[in-house]
């Protein structure tokens, strides 16, 4: 891939950037989940590693979070944008060279940022932990080139309309830049106090709401119709989804700080808007499930659909939790407990990861013109992810309910720690399964690139039979 950095744009084969992004994403996924498993081990067995500052929990926790968000999830998004946006516009990527450079700078910048973070160079703000000069690299070296490629590819498309997926891609790349610029302003301008606290969570909420959730959904708007051959059930519901994301998902940031002394009107407003997140959620889930009409056997037989529809189905509990857990009636009980950790993993490891995994599976096969090396390994990956995640989610939800009860009944904290111990072990086991599944995935995709059945021109990957 490095040889394309200094090649002429015309000489770079179409899809090079997407392939580069795809494999980078898988590697970052392994790194991120490996760190997660390592951290979970320390919560279950506190004397597992000690005496080394760089291996302390407080130095590694945020590296896990950002490796997964900015490495795995966002790079998988970039990969999807690099092949889906041109495909839907019946054209080529605006600049393959920009894409290759984008991926290169992304890997270098993220590795540098995470290394600094690991050393302890942090802004001390959750999700926007990176110090401000790394934030500037992310905004101008990573997000802007990505957005530019997406917007220009949409502009130079050779189709009349713009398909739903591309509305989301175009809008989300724009919104995420605004979110990074505004959300990190406490660091750029040394803003303090409640403004800083609020903007921290404004960032954390909107990076989820205006970047991860809509882009993940946009991917499934492409994968499901493309693989099943069914047209999207309703473009109008797609409109409803898009506009309600922009209007409702961008406003409830304050619901992350329901127990902080923020203005009461802000918390009430955020809480009401937070329930309205169910509007885009229901629109999205119903649209995708109805698109599956008549093709449900593919949920069992086809690996991309299996991943995508599992992700879509997980959006149901995700949004039911998300919509209601932030209301005052429920938030006082579960705020700050493992319930929230479980919910965050349902969003990122459940819902969104399954959609991105499908995009990477499908995209790499399409771009490399190679059929997936092994269906058995892909199924193994799927079940390791699903069982591992479910183990994690159930154990953390139970731990959270224990913590919540301990909190309101004023149980001495150490008794809560003792009660949580078995669930901490279960969470570590679940997380480790996800990590091992991903290692198998990388092997499978590597073998696909090297030894997968060649897909003849004019055929789609899922139309071919597996050889293994």
């Amino acid at each position: 891939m490095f040889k394309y950095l200094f090649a002429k744009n015309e000489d770079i084969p179409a899809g090079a950037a997407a392939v580069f992004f795809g494999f980078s994403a898988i590697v970052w996924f392994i790194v991120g989940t490996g760190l997660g498993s390592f951290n979970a081990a320390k919560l279950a067995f506190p004397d597992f590693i000690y005496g080394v500052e760089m291996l302390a929990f407080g130095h590694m926790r945020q590296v896990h979070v950002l490796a997964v968000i900015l490495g795995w999830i966002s790079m998988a998004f970039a990969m999807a944008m690099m092949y889906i946006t041109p495909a839907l516009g019946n054209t080529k990527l605006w600049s393959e060279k920009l894409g290759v450079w984008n991926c290169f700078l992304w890997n270098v910048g993220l590795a540098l940022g995470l290394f600094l973070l690991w050393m302890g160079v942090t802004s001390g703000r959750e999700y926007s932990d990176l110090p401000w000069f790394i934030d500037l690299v992310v905004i101008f070296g990573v997000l802007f080139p990505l957005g530019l490629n997406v917007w220009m590819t949409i502009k130079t498309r050779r189709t009349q309309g713009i398909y739903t997926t591309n509305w989301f891609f175009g809008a989300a790349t724009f919104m995420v830049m605004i979110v990074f610029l505004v959300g990190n302003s406490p660091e750029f301008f040394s803003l303090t106090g409640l403004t800083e606290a609020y903007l921290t969570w404004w960032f954390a909420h909107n990076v989820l709401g205006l970047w991860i959730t809509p882009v993940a959904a946009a991917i499934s708007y492409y994968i499901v119709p493309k693989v099943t051959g069914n047209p999207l059930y309703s473009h109008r519901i797609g409109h409803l989804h898009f506009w309600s994301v922009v209007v409702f998902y961008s406003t409830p940031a304050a619901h992350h700080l329901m127990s902080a002394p923020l203005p009461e009107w802000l918390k009430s407003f955020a809480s009401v808007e937070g329930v309205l997140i169910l509007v885009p959620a229901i629109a999205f889930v119903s649209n995708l499930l109805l698109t599956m009409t008549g093709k449900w056997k593919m949920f069992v037989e086809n690996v991309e659909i299996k991943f995508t529809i599992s992700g879509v189905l997980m959006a149901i509990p995700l949004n039911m939790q998300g919509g209601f857990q932030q209301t005052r009636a429920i938030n006082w009980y579960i705020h700050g407990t493992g319930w929230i950790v479980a919910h965050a993993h349902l969003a990122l490891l459940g819902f969104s990861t399954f959609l991105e995994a499908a995009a990477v599976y499908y995209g790499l096969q399409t771009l490399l013109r190679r059929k997936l090396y092994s269906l058995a390994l892909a199924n193994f990956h799927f079940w390791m992810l699903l069982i591992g995640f479910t183990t994690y989610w159930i154990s953390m939800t139970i731990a959270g309910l224990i913590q919540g009860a301990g909190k309101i009944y004023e149980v001495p904290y150490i008794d809560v720690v003792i009660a949580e111990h078995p669930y901490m072990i279960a969470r570590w086991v679940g997380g480790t399964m996800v990590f091992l599944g991903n290692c198998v995935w990388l092997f499978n995709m590597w073998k696909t690139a090297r030894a997968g059945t060649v897909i003849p021109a004019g055929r789609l990957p899922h139309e071919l039979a597996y050889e293994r």
Partner: protein
Amino acid sequence: MAFREYKIGARMFGLAFGTSMFITLYMPAVDISNVSVTATGLHRQLSFGRMGGFGYEDMLLQGINKPVSVVIKTDPQSGAAIEPTRAYVYEAGVPFPNGLRHPRILGKGPEALSMSKGRISESSESNGAVFIVREVEQNGEMVPYIENATAVRGWAPSATLAKVSEADRYHVGKGKIMFVREGCWWCHTLLPEETQDWQYFGAPPMLGDFNGENPTAFGSDRKAPDLTHVGSRNSSREWMTLHFFNPRLVQPHSIMPRYDYLWGDVDANGNKINFKDWYASYDEYSAGKRVYPPEVPEPSKDSEARALIDFVLNLK
């Protein structure tokens, strides 16, 4: 591209997104900026200094260029005994917190008093200054303000530090950096909830308790007790020392990591700390082969451990 819908759509998008940003950014900003700082808020920012996380004055988060909190018992100018007073010593070159750089964020009352009675505009970072928090009654309400003791009382930073014993110095500013760098706030919140927490962890904070503080490091995940008022619950330096070195010494079921690496190489007496021997003895102790655990070394006065303990003890 010549679709009229897309022009309408782009404008509608701008309207929707812009309205959302107006409600969630501009309106709260106006509300929050009208809040006047409390005495707690003044104490907090003066003890932490400009930045508790990454900043130009302390790029690698080593706790350098931070103020020292001290308890003054004799007037550094006259030498007369005075009521013990909490003061914040900013030596020359230590950056001021936001309340001093931009007094507007203190709110109307405290800003005016800090300027007129407190004479904070006469302080400069290049010369350093000593600050104290004072309160006066105005219209039946106690209004706090910052007093530049260097201008008002003639307390020079170096003379003040010279008059204060080691036991009355608290490296709270450096400790906040340790708190952030070591990720204490991933498990310990700094925000008691407005539900029933106040019965167990103490009163929830007020709106003006944070003006001038960055980062607030509230934390979101409570794997461990809230620390906002921990210094009031447990003020034992000895307990904190044992607990940071190895939490299992005082709480066998704790899952907190050991922070023994914050001790550095030598203890308070200048003796090299032999961690290897300590671990071996501790393993014997936890296996039941020893009656008592090995002795925990006292942290040296410049160690990161001491600063972190100072910070925690001052969370009241």
